[in-house]
């Protein structure tokens, strides 16, 4: 049975299509492993009974033309799922059951996949270690008491721990790529506007983007092909010609120009990250690509810019959680009192901190100095990339400045926590696609990731580069099943 959970998505799809495996067998295997993996705390809501029913139904009348035929999968608990509780990792939505489905998950189900449950994440996707979740922190399958990264920590842990063959996360400043890097998995943040935001609990609307997480690049490409669609229900969704990412996947990247931005060599970066990057450069060179040194001069402003723009939007996006219409409500003497109690009891510390920051930077008298300035810098950061892409086809950087850290190690130091996203944040600010692939291990045996950043709408190209590198790297994730007795 455990052999099934080791299979990649591509292998599972093939097995089901060849009738070597039934959807029920596959679903049961992942459910059984998930039941043995409670220690990881990857799930907020399990929907196992219903999943088995759906698998049975699928097997009775299997449609094998679908892209995800009878494939069970769990999704980040930021996606609204019809009739299945959706919490965003927050107490304030602890009792919230949507009557509607997000476009991205709708796309997945209509290709035959089956919902296993909802995966843990940082509260409202605000965090880099999954420690801000109301439902407790998530264990990294790599090692005990290690964070899986965040905010899509439950998703990363579930894929690495083989509780789900694939999953989807959301990425506002690195929330797919950083946990992918921490868990030795592959995570893609698509171009802003590629995947609909309809039905995804909003954190920072101008940055949020859903994306696939998987064990390998090919699986990732297939899932991206399924979730990316133009959606009239999201005004920022973009109607561009989408590739058949999995079908068109190739390891031929000869002649591609890969940029290496000097500004990503940050102070205090561990040598093993530097070495990994160097190795990555050699790999792409081996694949026949050309390395070009580039400059992204405004890189150092990305993080401060992000920590103005994202909280500003969040402070407004989270205003709707007021106890009036749905979700948690505390009793109050009057309306204001009810608001204050609901929101101070319903939101955790990190969310409150960001609401406060966001409210501050938007207030009159500070708006110009912070929010408006940040928007201008954001434009400069985007211009940096535009300039660079005149010379190169993609950019290679490390995914994170370090490997996964211990639970609790950074909870009292928000700034050092925020620094985790230093390489991923510029990509969100510029609205570009970025993929993190596992590329090696540090001295402790923890995985390290490399990031490939592409031009807007050029997912196919970075998937191809990742695919080619993946072959050369031949990464093996060291999963010992330490949490299973």
């Amino acid at each position, binding site marked *: 049975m455990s052999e099934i959970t080791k299979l990649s998505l591509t292998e599972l799809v093939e097995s089901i299509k060849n009738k070597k495996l039934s959807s029920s067998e596959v679903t049961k295997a992942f459910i059984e492993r998930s039941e043995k993996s409670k220690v990881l705390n990857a799930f907020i809501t399990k929907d196992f009974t219903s999943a088995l029913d759906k698998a049975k139904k699928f097997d009775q009348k299997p449609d094998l033309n679908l892209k995800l035929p009878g494939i069970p999968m769990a999704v980040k608990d930021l996606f609204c799922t019809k009739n299945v509780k959706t919490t965003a990792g927050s107490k304030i939505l602890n009792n919230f059951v949507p009557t509607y489905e997000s476009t991205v998950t709708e796309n997945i189900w209509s290709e035959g996949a089956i919902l296993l449950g909802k995966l843990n994440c940082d509260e409202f996707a605000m965090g880099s270690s999954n420690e801000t979740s109301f439902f407790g922190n998530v264990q990294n399958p790599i090692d005990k008491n290690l964070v899986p990264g965040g905010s899509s920590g439950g998703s990363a842990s579930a894929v690495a721990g083989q509780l789900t063959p694939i999953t989807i996360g959301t990425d506002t400043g690195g929330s797919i790529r950083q946990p992918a890097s921490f868990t030795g998995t592959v995570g893609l943040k698509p171009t802003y506007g590629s995947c609909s*935001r309809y039905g995804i609990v909003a954190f920072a609307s101008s940055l949020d983007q859903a994306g696939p997480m998987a064990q390998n690049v090919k699986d990732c490409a297939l899932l991206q092909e399924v979730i990316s669609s133009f959606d009239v229900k999201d*005004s920022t969704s973009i109607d561009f010609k989408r590739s058949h990412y999995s079908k068109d996947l190739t390891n031929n990247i000869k002649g591609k120009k890969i940029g290496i931005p000097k500004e990503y060599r940050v102070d205090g970066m561990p040598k093993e990250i530097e070495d990994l990057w160097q190795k990555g450069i050699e790999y792409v060179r081996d694949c026949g690509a050309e390395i070009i040194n580039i400059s992204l001069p405004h890189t150092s402003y990305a993080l401060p810019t992000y920590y103005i723009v994202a909280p500003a939007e969040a402070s407004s996006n989270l205003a709707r959680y007021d106890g009036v219409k749905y979700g948690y409500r505390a009793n109050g003497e009057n309306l204001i009192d009810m608001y204050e109690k609901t929101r101070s009891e319903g939101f955790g510390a990190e969310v409150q901190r960001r609401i406060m920051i966001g409210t501050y930077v938007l207030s009159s008298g500070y708006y110009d100095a912070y929010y408006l300035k940040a928007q201008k810098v954001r434009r400069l950061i985007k211009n940096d990339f535009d300039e660079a892409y005149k010379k190169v086809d993609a950019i290679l950087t490390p995914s994170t400045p370090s490997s996964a850290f211990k639970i609790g190690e950074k909870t009292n130091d928000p700034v050092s926590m925020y620094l985790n996203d230093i390489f991923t944040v510029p990509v969100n600010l510029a609205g570009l696609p970025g993929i993190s692939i596992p590329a090696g291990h540090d001295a402790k045996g923890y995985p390290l990731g490399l990031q490939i950043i592409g031009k807007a709408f050029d997912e196919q190209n970075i998937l191809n580069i990742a695919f080619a590198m993946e072959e050369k790297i031949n990464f093996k994730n060291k999963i010992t099943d330490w949490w299973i007795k």
Partner: protein
Amino acid sequence: MSKKSREYLINRRDNQYEVVIGLEVHAQVLSESKLFSTSATKFGAEPNTQVSLVDAAFPGMLPVINEFCVKQAIKTGIGLNAKINKRSVFDRKNYFYADLPQGYQISQFKDPIVGEGKVIIDLPDGHKEVGIERLHLEQDAGKSIHDLDPQNTFVDLNRSGVALMEIVSKPDLRSPDEVSIYIKKLRSIMRYLGTCDGNMQEGSLRADVNVSVRKKGSKEFGTRCEIKNVNSIKFMQMAIEYEANRQVDLIEEGKTIDQETRLFDTKKNETRSMRSKEDAHDYRYFPDPDLLPLEVSDEFVNKLKSEIPELPDDKKKRFINEFKLSAYEATILVSDIEIAKYFEEVVAKMGKNKDMKLAVNWITGELFAVLNSKNLEITKSPVSAKNLAILVNLIKNGTISGKIAKTVFELMLKNDEDPQKIVEEKGLKQQSDPKALEELIDKIINNNREKAIEYKQGKEKLFGFFVGQAMKASGGKANPQLINEILKKKL
């Protein structure tokens, strides 16, 4: 513009104060669905039956602009002779309230869809230009209902997300009367355009009224107070009158006016402080990241321009030129699109040999009187334009006299009956046979010999006496013109 005589001034001791008023009118866009959702907008529906997930701000819900509402706003902008901004931006106006589900209102702050424009208002002694500062699109909030329960407040979200146009005037108005005329003109233009029904009872048109006072002749503006959400012209006028006098009293007492937001208490007929400038909300406006900037092409705007109907000002000019109406008559007839339509239908139905003056008199006289007394809109008129045209023609061609016409009109009210038929059935046709009338007049002169002599000796007043006698003898049916002619000849 000699409006000195009608200047609205507040006098205290030796001082004369001028009142300066600017309006922020909130006009509900005439649209089947809301600004950012597909929910219906019907007035008077059961509470919370016209609410989508977007309107109730469920997690992950996103606004999608309703193109029709954008067109309506642009059309209104064209009607206000205003600059249409090809690029506008939707912003979030953040504040907490139970009937504001998102915790913010989507509005336009820095970049509205419509820029500066102007409205011409007709005053009793001329006309005046009122500047329009801007027009922007925004969402309405829901409704909090506090009086259904002693402990709880209920919220109805039917209005939540309904499209409003906020039309901001420049501080160009100087009296409660000007405000009334301005609002009516604005309403008229929007009804012509079909962009707002202007129904104040249903809340489709309300205004925030900015009032300040200054000594007559002063160039600087005084400190203004904003009276929030006044929903009838009468209340606007009362609120301005109260507020202006309150401010003048403060100045006269040597006190200062605080810039603040005030409420008008319609029961006590006074304005009360709602919040001071210090307590003013910090709305933390910022561009809504869920919506892209709204961009419209020249082509799009030009297409809308081509769909604009003849508006009151142009119609008035045409009525004066084409139908030779007085400015006063034309103003009344174009004031409401439905009245204008009715009038034009009457004109069309009267055919070639028409008496425009007579038609106008009948519409603005008899017909308006009936509509007023029955409290009816002209669209519900008991007398159709077609039948009124026939009636006017009957008078014009001498079939009936004006007096008899009034009797016929009364009879028409019941079932919008054809006046021709009434005249025939009731035998009300005018006596226009000269021979019969001559006989009738001969008889009257013979019976009143002495008066006839007195008339000839110069007592001209007696002419009326003979006319009266003749009319009486004919049962009111004699053609008065002929009577006049014959009498003049015979006497």
